[in-house]
């Protein structure tokens, strides 16, 4: 008791060493692991004039690859947004045998080398694979088409949605929607007016992360994409092609476009999230 009293007023004791040291080490780590490689990337670009840069990043085939990548990533993110929410809901709100297993399974795409995922998906969905054999007679080709790209992207990015929504849902007690229902709200209204507003920031963040993750995905996609020019070539492949040509600068230029788009999107999500939370809590935050 006495020690507590004497400590009152001074800074509280922390488990990790002082703020200066902690922050210093954190910053050094970020610099070495994150900022240094990024600086290197931009260093590669230093030799380019703006016109040359523009020419590289607007080359017809590269632009076509943006379309393919962004389109497929958007579809993958939206699909994951819907199904990721459902998965998180089931995992948080229900008890059933095998729940722990399902929960663990969610992280698998993080752990699995993406190339393995790509090869597995291609095997499954090509015309002689288990799924492909069923789908193709219906006129629905997945492997070596745009659909295959979106499929591979949803596979690798699903954990982002589930793992962002899940904790928020866990914090939201059952009683909240039960109260809404007791007050006469229909199921739909309760979900829309009571639950969704709380989940919204997490859901959008998760979906956004899934989208950004999909933009850079390479390993899982090239095996299932078919890689046909203008049709199923992704931007990451364009970067790979440039590297094969020993064109480091060109590769960095295209990579920087992906980086900028991702960065901008993450920034927008963060700002929006801040505003949203403020509004949700009546400007108290």
């Amino acid at each position, binding site marked *: 008791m006495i020690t507590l009293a004497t400590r009152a007023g001074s800074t509280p004791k922390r488990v990790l060493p002082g703020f200066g040291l902690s922050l210093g080490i954190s910053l050094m780590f970020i610099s070495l692991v994150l900022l240094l490689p990024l600086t290197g990337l931009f260093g590669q670009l230093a030799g380019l004039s703006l016109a040359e840069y523009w020419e*590289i990043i607007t*080359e*017809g*085939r590269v632009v*076509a690859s943006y379309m393919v990548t962004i389109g497929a990533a958007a579809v993958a993110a939206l699909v994951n947004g819907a199904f990721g929410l459902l998965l998180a809901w089931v995992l948080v709100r229900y008890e059933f045998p095998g729940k722990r297993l399902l929960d663990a399974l969610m992280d698998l795409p993080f752990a699995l080398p993406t190339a393995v995922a790509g*090869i597995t998906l*291609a*095997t499954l969905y*090509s*015309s*002689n*694979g288990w799924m492909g054999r069923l789908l193709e007679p219906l006129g629905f080709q997945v*492997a*070596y088409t745009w659909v295959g790209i979106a499929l591979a992207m949803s596979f690798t990015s699903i954990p982002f949605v589930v793992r962002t929504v899940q904790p928020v849902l866990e914090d939201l007690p059952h009683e909240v929607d039960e109260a809404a229902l007791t007050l006469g709200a229909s199921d739909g209204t309760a979900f829309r007016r009571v639950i969704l507003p709380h989940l919204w920031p997490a859901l959008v963040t998760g979906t956004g992360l899934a989208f950004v993750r999909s933009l850079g995905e390479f390993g899982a996609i*090239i*095996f299932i994409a*078919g*890689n*046909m*020019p*203008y*049709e199923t070539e992704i931007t990451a*492949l364009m970067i*790979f*092609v*440039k*590297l*094969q*040509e*020993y*064109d480091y600068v*060109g590769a960095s230029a295209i990579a920087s476009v992906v980086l900028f788009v991702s960065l901008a999107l993450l920034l927008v999500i963060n700002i929006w999230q801040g505003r949203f939370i403020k509004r949700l809590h009546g400007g108290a935050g």
Partner: protein
Amino acid sequence: MHLLSTVRRTALAVALGVSLATPALAAEREILNSSYDIARELFSAINPEFRDWWQAEQGEEIAIQQSHGGSSAQARAILQGLRADVVTYNQVTDVQVLADAGLVAGDWQELLPNNASPYYSTTAFLVRKDNPKGIESWDDLVREDVRMVFPNPKTSGNGRYTYLAAWGFAQQHFDGDEEQIHDFMRTFLRNVAVFDTGGRGATTTFIERGIGDVLISFESEVNNIRGEYGRDDYEVIVPPVSILAEFPVAVVEPNAERNGTQDLAQAYVEYLYSEEAQRMLAGFNYRVHHEAVVEEFADQFPETDLLRVEDIVGSWEQAMDEHFAGGALLDQLQRRR
């Protein structure tokens, strides 16, 4: 307590000392061979033979490490500091890149026989059982009903050979008429079902996924595939006109010098020309130069007109600039209309 920690500390010190001393005791020299993707099995077979040969000749115990990957990626790794002693690639340009950087002698192609290529191959077709589409040569590949698989020329030396072989054929066929050659190549490229990034990927697509009517790859590779996946299910077609694919080797001099392995590296690349190595190469379906071995394996390699890259497009450098660079002919021919 005190005694225990002293014991532990001593044990640690001993362990450290031993681990530091070990490499010095077994002063075994080691060379690293940086090679292309599909040569893993080949060099796994050749390396022990070379090791035994060197042991018999020089009485020295040596070790050989292998590193495999896309040939260009391998060269890039060396440019960025991988200390490989020798390179054995499937494309002249990848060694030339090293020569341009001063890592390989400028005149490397003159240092060893046959343009420093101990073995060669050509581009051939693998078709399904009984050749249902009746594919015999390059002009069968531009038919409406034929779909083919070969790796992307943008990412694969193998794919570049295929592209240039088709180009060389069209040059002969249309007597150099540029417009007709371009039309031919456009149709040729449109008939590709899947563009994998490397040779093995294309093989998987054709064999495991059942995509396409014909797989185009090195003759050595398609023969090896046929051996592996069933002689009855596939047939190898060597077209009457194809391309000479050289497999250049070189010593990475600054690295060998630093590693103190110059003599070893030099002996290694020269060994590839020896009769026993050439026999092993032929066993892996590569064409070789050693006369006795050539005779021995004569019926394995059908005679065909092999065009040189230099005769088709002038030089590899020109091929890269005029055909494969961003926005060059390949891009133009593939442009969506």
